[in-house]
């Protein structure tokens, strides 16, 4: 067993253990943090497959942004665990069937003739000046440009929808509106009255 195999087993053990922890620990904050650990170890595994762009992008996007917001929300919620546990056994058979179907699907993909060990050998080690990022960018912007642009448009639509769904104008909110403030002219606010001066009695 060489050094890389040992690293692989260390990373996979941590990954499996933390993934199990995500669904078993009681504290939701712990489970969010364990998910972060799972992402980071997964990035380590990808690095060993020489997919350095994907590995770092995983850390940058999921650990650096998505999970921060996740953790944020989990910390603010006051989660009642007993209510979450209600009906666990009622839904258990349903969940077990879905889990079995998923395991069967994944093993069909991995063992089958498209992604089996023979079809997907370990990637050949590349030279030091080989840039994974450059190759990925070249493929995305030449061969797969339509699929890539389509995915981008999809994300944009999702973003606009999310904003549109949550954007509400509250009428009862009292806050200064700078654009209204600078548009105010003195004629709108002040009325100059010329009064004849009165004599003191």
């Amino acid at each position, binding site marked *: 067993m060489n050094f890389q195999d040992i690293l692989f087993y260390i990373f996979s053990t941590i990954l499996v253990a933390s993934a199990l922890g995500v669904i078993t620990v009681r504290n939701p904050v712990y489970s969010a943090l364990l998910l972060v650990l799972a992402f980071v170890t997964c990035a380590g595994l990808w690095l060993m497959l020489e997919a350095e*762009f994907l590995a770092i992008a995983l*850390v940058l996007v999921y650990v*650096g942004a998505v999970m921060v917001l996740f953790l944020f929300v989990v*910390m603010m919620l006051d989660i009642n665990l007993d209510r979450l546990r209600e009906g666990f056994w009622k839904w258990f058979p349903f969940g077990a069937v879905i889990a079995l179907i998923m395991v069967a699907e994944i093993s069909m993909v991995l063992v089958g003739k498209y992604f089996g060990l023979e079809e997907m050998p370990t990637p050949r080690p590349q030279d030091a000046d*080989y840039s994974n*990022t450059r190759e990925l960018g070249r493929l995305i912007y030449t061969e797969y440009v339509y699929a890539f642009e389509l995915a981008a448009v999809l994300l944009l639509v999702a973003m606009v929808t999310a904003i549109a769904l949550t954007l509400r104008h509250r009428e009862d909110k009292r806050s200064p509106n700078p654009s209204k403030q600078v548009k105010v002219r003195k004629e709108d606010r002040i009325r100059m009255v010329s009064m004849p001066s009165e004599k003191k009695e």
Partner: protein
Amino acid sequence: MENIQQQFVEIFGIEWGSMLFSLASNVTFIFAIVIPLLLGVAYLTFAERKIIAYMQIRVGPNRVTFFGIPWLRGWGQPIADAVKAIMKEIIIPTGANKLLFILAPVLTIMPALAAWAVIPFSPELVLADINAGLLYILAMTSMGIYGIIIAGWASNSKYAFLGAMRSAAQVVSYELAMGFALVCVLMMSRSLNLGDIVNGQQGNSLLNWYLIPLFPMFLVYLISGIAETNRAPFDVAEGESEIVAGFHVDYSGMAFTVFFLAEYSNMILVATLTSIMFLGGWLPPVDMEPFTWIPGFIWLLLKIAFILFFFLWFRATFPRYRYDQIMRLGWKVFIPITLIWIVLLGLIMQLPESIRNSFPLNIWF
């Protein structure tokens, strides 16, 4: 070096020997980076106190001498501070989550130190010369926020939690502008490797540095960097007039000091990255005789010190931003500027070479 490697190979065999040798040499290199960095942090706090004192017509720390040398009055202050911090008790509040309370400072200092792995100090002097260096830096700096959020939550204190929430929102929003500014840099240099980015700025003089063609990006990066490190005038995360000390209000002793170390090493990191990406890294300002005598490492240090002086100067000069103004600056000013600059830069780079060469005084594209 080769002799030591030979000895390792003889003792542990060919495969494990070279592996262990690279491990040992890397650990040595890591210590050679981290120990000067921590000393730099210690003396940055001293510089901050002295510089701000002089700006406010005070004297600053001048009591603790350095090994009794009379004309180094005050130079022992950081060491005295460190000793005091180590001696103090770490108090864990009753309602706090103990595990996360202890883990939070560790999670803060880890990315602050890990990001230094890819920094090139001179053409040869770099710990990990990886292709995706810039991405690695972005990933590491984006992980720094966990320590702050966890500290705020684990303290079980309203002030700490408010500080953590402010900090998280601020860091996430300024990260975008920072990332886009860096996209411009990598468009110019056509590489994610920090050494290649510095080499791309090589030329006759400082006019070749990316500072000139990317000047708005330089400003965006520097200001976002200040916001990322939660420094004044963007220090609402610890705004002492509103929420006592923000996320580290319940921390004491060494646990607090680790947060402090992380903040200052992040400051030095941002200054270093600004020097590497916009101020030509280890390159001398003019490629001529008297300037090239000075080694590149010294030039890099001078540039870092120059940027750090700005950090301290800003703190002494500007009042604190209001929170909604910070968000407005990040989302409505910086991100549009960077997006427009990226499109502009892309258009210029896609122009036919004959048109680009006809620009007057063009040395960059």
